């Protein structure tokens, strides 16, 4: 048995779906951000796998570089996102996103 592209695609799809489930069901802001990380990782798996299976020349690693940028983005996102979470928690003493409704009215 060989591991082909479809294996990776299904795995990443599964990971992405789990991330979606988490985003839809969680209320805690930190847990939400963790689910975002899961989804970003699903995308990265896809990028790397496609790069490997569909590009015969291993020296053209566009997918890997794209994935590296995704990692950079994730770092920035985590940095700002958690700063926001901490600031909100300090100010309002709550962390559940459905209770943070200051901007609603």
């Amino acid at each position: 048995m060989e591991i082909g592209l479809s294996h990776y695609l299904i795995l990443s799809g599964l990971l992405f779906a789990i991330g979606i489930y988490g985003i839809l069901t969680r209320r805690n802001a930190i847990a939400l951000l963790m689910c975002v990380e899961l989804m970003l990782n699903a995308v990265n798996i896809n990028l790397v796998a496609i790069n490997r299976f569909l590009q015969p020349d291993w020296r053209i690693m566009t997918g890997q570089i794209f994935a590296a940028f995704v990692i950079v983005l994730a770092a920035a996102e985590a940095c700002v996102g958690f700063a926001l979470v901490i600031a909100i928690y300090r100010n309002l003493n709550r962390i559940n996103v459905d209770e943070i409704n200051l901007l609603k009215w």
Partner: protein
Amino acid sequence: MGEVIAFYILALIIVLGALAVVTGRNLFHCGLSLAAVLLAVAGLFILNGAEFLAWVQVLIYVGAVLVIILYAIMLSENITGERILLISQNRGVGFAAATLVFALIAFLGISLSGLLAGHTSSVKDPVLALLEGADSNVIVFGTLLLTRYILPFEFASVFLVIALIGALVIARTAE
């Protein structure tokens, strides 16, 4: 054979870890499960010949992002030790949506991979001239990053600085 075993082990860790992240009741355990997922994804990268990316993933995701997450958990839960139990809501809707998304992706993925199986890009890439004789993942990665992808690369650094300053401004306490 080795790759098959490795893939299934890593896939198992990823799926179980991810499930633990989205269903766990203890936020800190969720963070640790996320660490397992991230490390397993790094393992998949290695399996796909992306060593550099794999270790970047460990360095940045596990060493930095995850630590930020753990700090956020510790700073937001009452530091005195009382723990917030995580509750999930809308489980049905979430499950339905997730299944739908998965079905979509899986369908697209399988059909696409079937479609693309024989197809490979045959365009002669001008960058290849630069990579003549390059024998290591790192050298290729670095060369590509500083030639073809120089603009995104520079943009990423600016982006990171912006994020850094932004986070500082947001999280800082009073003057």
